[in-house]
């Protein structure tokens, strides 16, 4: 019987998944680690360095000395593989839409989306334009909406705090998902 390393890994996956996800062992581990993992997740939010329009400027200002979002552990990374938050900070044109969707798909779970400013929420002043998608939530699930045109940096920091609260409220175990 050919039992290659690939098969072995698969078997390990299945057995371990079965044990961990369905038996009390998994929920026990979850019960112990849930709070800790949740604390870590909500206190280290990396966002994608991705600017669209005016709000991108305020996003940059939020990480500069006066508003200083870094003290809360909010850092910008340039590649979608390493981030938790996608901040959509401007109108999404039809040319951009597939690229943005792809960026969102490249981010690892758990991930959140902040729609910053009117343009991302509903299209803003360009709501009836022929090339603007009226609201980013038409193709990406959005967790936090920040109104304002453009939203101020304080509002962005407030959104981070609200997101932290949201993560804390939706506490989930790593294994069982409960």
């Amino acid at each position, binding site marked *: 019987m050919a039992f290659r390393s690939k098969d072995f890994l698969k078997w390990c996956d299945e057995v371990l998944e079965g044990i961990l996800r369905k038996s009390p062992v998994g929920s026990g581990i979850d019960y112990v680690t849930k709070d800790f993992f949740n604390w870590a997740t909500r206190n280290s939010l990396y966002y*994608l*360095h*991705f*600017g*669209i*329009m*005016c709000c*991108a*400027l*305020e996003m*940059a*200002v939020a990480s*500069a*000395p*006066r508003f200083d979002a870094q003290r809360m552990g909010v850092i910008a990374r*340039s590649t*979608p593989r390493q981030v938790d938050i996608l901040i959509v900070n*401007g*109108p999404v*044109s039809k*040319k*951009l839409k597939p*690229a943005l969707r792809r*960026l969102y798909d490249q981010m690892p779970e758990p991930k959140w989306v902040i729609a910053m400013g009117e343009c991302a929420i509903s299209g803003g*002043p*360009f709501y*009836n*334009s*022929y*090339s*603007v998608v009226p609201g980013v939530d038409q193709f990406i699930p959005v967790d936090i909406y920040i109104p304002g*045109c*453009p939203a*101020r940096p304080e509002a962005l920091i407030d959104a981070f705090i609200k997101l932290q609260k949201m993560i804390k409220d939706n506490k989930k175990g790593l294994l069982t998902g409960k």
Partner: protein
Amino acid sequence: MAEMWINMGPQHPMTHGLWNLRIKVDGETIIDAEPEVGYLHRGIEKLCESKTYTQIIPIADRLCYGASLSWSHLYCVTVEDLLGLEVPPRAEYIRVAALEMQRIASHLMWLAAYAADLGAMIGFIYSMRDREVFIDLLQALSGSRITYNFPRFGGVAHDIPPNFERDSLRACDYMEKRLKEYEDLYEGSKVFMLRNEGVGLLKKEDAMNLGVTGPSLRASGVRYDLRKDMPYSVYQELDFEPATHKDGDCYARFKVRMDEMYESCKIIRQAVTKMPKGKWRTLAPRNAPEGTGLGRVEDPRGEGVMYVVGDGTDRPYRLKIRSPIFVTVSAAPKMLIGYKIADVVAIMGGLDMCIGESDR
């Protein structure tokens, strides 16, 4: 490594906005380049045809997020040309002071992005911190941080707030001190000079032929500044000298922008001290006559032009916007070819991209 095409964008830390630079590289050397814009196209020109003249002012603000005041001012200048409207002198002085503040803020934004591109995080931080000084002044003037909605046809929306003159003078003093520090920080750095001198050469003839305007043109040795050569507001009454440099490389573009900030400080000082008393706004008619209006101003990024066609109603028949960056980007391949991948950030950062105005 074989030759390959690399897509830099639309999400790339170098772009500062939504555009895509496709470069063909042989190892690390660029042998072909092709910018691609349009990811932020909002159809503003079409949108304006369905809005009244006054409703367009906030939209003109959102053309460029780096220097929004300059664009709403350009729009107002254009419509005033169509209406044949005179602007009271106090309003002109307020506009000039605000415009120069906007220019400094925009250049500081550029400096922040440029420094971050070259890898000096400290430059990003310092410029962002000092930009807040001018943003605060503009906020006191108009009430918001980025999109001001401040100019009106025949004037400005509000008079200046109390103590504005004192605060402006203080801000100018502070800024000039900080600018000296920046020069130490950048020009004193051997690494900065290594990265900038002789990189991204743009000859005078090419710059003129390709339609490059603004600081990039002046860095190539053409002394052409609309504020001086075709004065549009009260600029002819103010004493300043447009900054030029003859080298045409990235360092020249850096130097021209740094010098422009000094000049802007000078202009703000003169404008707030010379400001006459009087009205700051005249009433404009609701409907514009048939005809055309043209506005040309010196945006922080180059020559901004608007061309409006009125048809006797309260909505423009056609509004055409000339974005300096749109034309300047088309000249990018000329500067890029032959340099290394690492020079892309220096060259494109030196052009001060603002995609909002370029894509419209």
